[in-house]
Every structure is written in structure tokens, then in C-alpha cells.
């Protein structure tokens, strides 16, 4: 029984890291532009495809194609911002939500047309899949993704905390006019923020590629959880996103171990609703509402 609990905890934590990873980009975009991006899952899917095709045609290990997918998606994200979302900055927030839904539909179905619905996977030769630590199995690709999630959120935190550009991004998210009057080009900050959010999605996608099939609709698997995690952690809060991810991951794993049927999913949404009601700024006092 103890092993079961421990194993569940480990699985939950690893999965939670991945949920957190998916959520970081979402939370960044929300933090700066106050937009809930439904297309985030579709961007993640693009990241997965980039890693997949790099593996197939160039033989690049998905972990090594991260820069490629991150940079490509940065530009795709900036382009989406420039062509569509920049025109929506002052629109009612549900209109912004619907635009991102439209973007999602376009990207996903474009992928379907271009690449067919086939499930595609990357197989790494000689790659150790599991570590056994005292009877507890640890899935290596998930562990890598988990570590990456931690590293990324810390890196992002430091970037926003220590660099001038990062500070400018935060400043813009706090007070747009104040930022303008300090000489910050807020339009450029928007491109960068959405681009960064998209590349974070891409990085998450690349990290998921080694253990999850790539297909045009893969984003749906992660996006709802992403929303839950983002709200849980507080919109715009990176560390909160990771912790929110861990909470969902662990509660799912433990719920799965002890609840009958698929009731474990209920846990996720009930936690979500309770947090929405009781702590609308997220468990860790997200910045904005």
C-alpha cells in the first residue's frame, strides 16, 4: 500500500510537472495580454510536429530540436499577435476568447489537411525509459519534461526578474500606459510575449513527443487541464502554474488509485470550481483578474 501511494505520488508529480509546463505559456500570455488562449494546445501540437519531422527527416533527437521548435513557434506566435490579436486588444474578453478558438480550429484542421490524422511517434534507440528507485518506477521522458518544467519556470522567472526586457514585459502587464510613458514599445512587448508563450507551448510539445503520439488533435488532451492549472496557480503566475500542475497531477494520481471508475477526473474539476469560487486569484494570489 505504501508503495502504491509512493508510486502514485511520483507519477502524479511527474505528470503535474507536464501540466505545469503546458500552463506556463498560457499564464504568460494571460499575464501580459489578459487573453485566455484557446489555441495554446494547437501551438503545442505544432511544436510536436516540428520535433517529429526533424526526427524523421533530419534524424534530430526531439530534445535537440527544442530550439528549432521554440524559435519557429516564437515567430508563428508573434505573427498571430501581429495579424490578429493586436487588433483585438481592446475587444471584450469573450471576443478575444472566441478569436483564439477560431485560430485553434484553423491550425488544427490545417494540420489535418497537411499531415493527415495519422498518429506519429518518435522512437529513441537505446534510451532508458524507466529508472527504478527503491521499487518506485520513474519514467525518464516524463522526468526530463518535469525537470525542464522546473528549469523553464525558473529561467522564465529570472528572465522576467533580471533582464531589462523581462522587466519591461512585467511592467507592461502591470500598467500599459505607465510602460508607454517609460519608453517601452508595448506593441513589441506584445509580440514578444505571445511569441514567448507560443514557444513555451512548443517546448512543451517537443518534450512530450518522446512519450506521446503526435496527431492534429493532440492539443485537446492538454488544453483543458492547462486552463485548470493556470486558474489554480493564479493567472500570470509561473511558479503558481507549476504548483497548480502538481496539485492536479497528484490529486489525479491519488484519486485514480482510490476512487472507482473515472471519478478521478471529477476531483480535478471540483478543485477547479472551488478555487474559482473561493480564491479567484488562484491559490497563490495571481496578479490580475
Amino acid at each position, binding site marked *: 500500500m505504501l508503495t502504491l501511494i509512493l508510486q502514485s505520488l511520483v507519477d502524479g508529480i511527474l505528470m503535474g510537472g507536464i501540466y505545469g509546463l503546458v500552463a506556463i505559456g498560457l499564464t504568460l500570455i494571460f499575464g501580459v495580454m489578459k487573453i485566455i488562449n484557446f489555441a495554446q494546445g494547437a501551438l503545442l501540437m505544432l511544436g510536436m510536429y516540428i520535433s517529429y519531422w526533424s526526427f524523421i527527416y533530419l534524424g534530430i533527437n526531439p530534445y535537440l530540436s527544442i530550439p528549432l521548435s521554440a524559435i519557429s513557434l516564437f515567430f508563428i506566435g508573434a505573427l498571430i499577435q501581429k495579424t490578429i490579436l493586436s487588433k483585438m486588444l481592446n475587444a471584450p474578453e469573450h471576443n478575444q476568447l472566441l478569436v483564439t478558438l477560431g485560430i485553434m480550429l484553423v491550425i488544427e484542421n490545417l494540420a489535418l489537411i497537411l499531415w493527415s490524422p495519422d498518429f506519429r511517434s518518435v522512437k529513441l534507440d537505446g534510451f532508458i525509459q524507466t529508472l527504478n528507485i527503491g521499487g518506485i518506477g520513474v519514467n525518464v521522458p516524463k522526468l526530463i519534461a518535469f525537470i525542464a518544467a522546473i528549469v523553464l519556470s525558473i529561467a522564465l522567472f529570472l528572465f522576467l526578474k533580471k533582464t531589462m526586457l523581462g522587466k519591461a514585459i*512585467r511592467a507592461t502587464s502591470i500598467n500599459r500606459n505607465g510602460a508607454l510613458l517609460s519608453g517601452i514599445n508595448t506593441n513589441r512587448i506584445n509580440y514578444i510575449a505571445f511569441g514567448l508563450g507560443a514557444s513555451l507551448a512548443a517546448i512543451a510539445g517537443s518534450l512530450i513527443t518522446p512519450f506521446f503520439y503526435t496527431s492534429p488533435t493532440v492539443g485537446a488532451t492538454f488544453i483543458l487541464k492547462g486552463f485548470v492549472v493556470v486558474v489554480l496557480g493564479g493567472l500570470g503566475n509561473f511558479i503558481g502554474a507549476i504548483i497548480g500542475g502538481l496539485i492536479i497531477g497528484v490529486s489525479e494520481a491519488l484519486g485514480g488509485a482510490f476512487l472507482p471508475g473515472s471519478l478521478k477526473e471529477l476531483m480535478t474539476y471540483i478543485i477547479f470550481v472551488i478555487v474559482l469560487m473561493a480564491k479567484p486569484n488562484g491559490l497563490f494570489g495571481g496578479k490580475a483578474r
Partner: protein
Amino acid sequence: MLKVSNLNAGYGNLQVLRNISFEVNSGELVSILGTNGAGKTTLLRTLSGLISAGSGQIEFSGKQIQKMRPENIVKEGLIQVPEGRLLFTEMTVRENLELGAYSSGARKNMNKNIEYCFQLFPILKERENQMAGSFSGGQQQMLAIGRALMAEPKILLLDEPSTGLSPLLTKQVFDIINEIKQEGVTVLLVEQNAHQALSMSDRGYVIENGEIVMEGTAESLMKDNKLRESYLGLAN
């Protein structure tokens, strides 16, 4: 240094500023006085490029700036301490100051200028690492001025720096403005607080309902009864 001619501007279809013309010479401290809703803030927002000018010219250091984007106007050296301060409340004092120096020209002197601000406002040094949002009104005002100074302004625009401050604090803030002026910075001060503003200004303009209705040297305005009337409604 700053020359505004026939400026019209507003929000949407609302015209707030009508045919405004005035100028500020290098090294001067000029006040723009007026009651609430007279269009003072709109004027400053237009100068900084937050609102685009409908018609008219804004010439700054020999350049037409009415079509420039706000961040480029900042680069030119026209810096505003806005109404409501617009601080980055969830960032520290130091970060707020650093961001003041965001434009490329000012960034190389950032550390030196931060020291200067700390010297000017010792309270900011004490609270260097606190969040700006936790500050009282007066401290926020000082920080806002400090942030603007970080951009190495050629001209500093101040929008009602005394709002919400106690008389003592108001005096402190005005003392600082005076000091800044002594350093050679040109200042355009928008105020309700007529006496205090005029007492340190070289010249002043009175704006009413979007139009400039009076102008003159500080002394002449101070003695002018019309000013009193416009403020206190003590019509005869």
C-alpha cells in the same frame, strides 16, 4: 524647446482640446492651471503621444512629434509624470526606476541616475526593494518623479503632482520640483494648486474647457483676480 500650435485632440468623437497654443523655453518652469475636467490631463497625454493629435503641431527640440509613438517621444527626452502615477505596483522601487531608463539613450547611465534619485529621495533608497504598490501617495509620487528622471528628460511634464497629498507632502514635492529645475531641467507643470504652482513658475497658462483663456508671467497671474474667480467662483 516645446512649441504647441493650434492643437486639437480628444477621445473618440469627443473633442477635449480646442486650438491650444503655447510654448515652453529651455530652462523654464511653466505651469498650466485649470480646474478638473478642463483638459489638462488630455493635453499631457497628447504631448506624450498616448492620444493622437487631431490637428495642430507639437514641435519639440526642433522636431515634429505629434505623429510619433509614445516610446519614441520618450526617447526624444519628453518625459511625463502622469496623473495617477501609473507605477508598476507589483515591482520593486529599484525596478521601477530601472524601467524609467528603458529607452536606449538613458540606459548606460542607469546606475548613476539611480544614485541621483536616491540622493533626491532618500526614502526610496530605504525602501529600494519594496513593492511600489505598498507605498503611500506621497512616496508613490516621489517614485513616479524618480522614474521620470531616470529617462534623463530634456523636459519633464508633471500632471498634478500634489493630488491627494497632505500640505506638508505637497510642499516637499514642490521643493523637489524646484530642485530639479535648478539642475537645468525644463519643467511643464499641470496643477490645480495655483498658488504653489505659480510661486515657483516662470510663466503660466490657464486652461478652461479645453481652451487657453489666460497666460502670462507667474507674478501677473497671481495678482489677477480673474484667476481667483475661475477657481473659487466668486463672481461679483
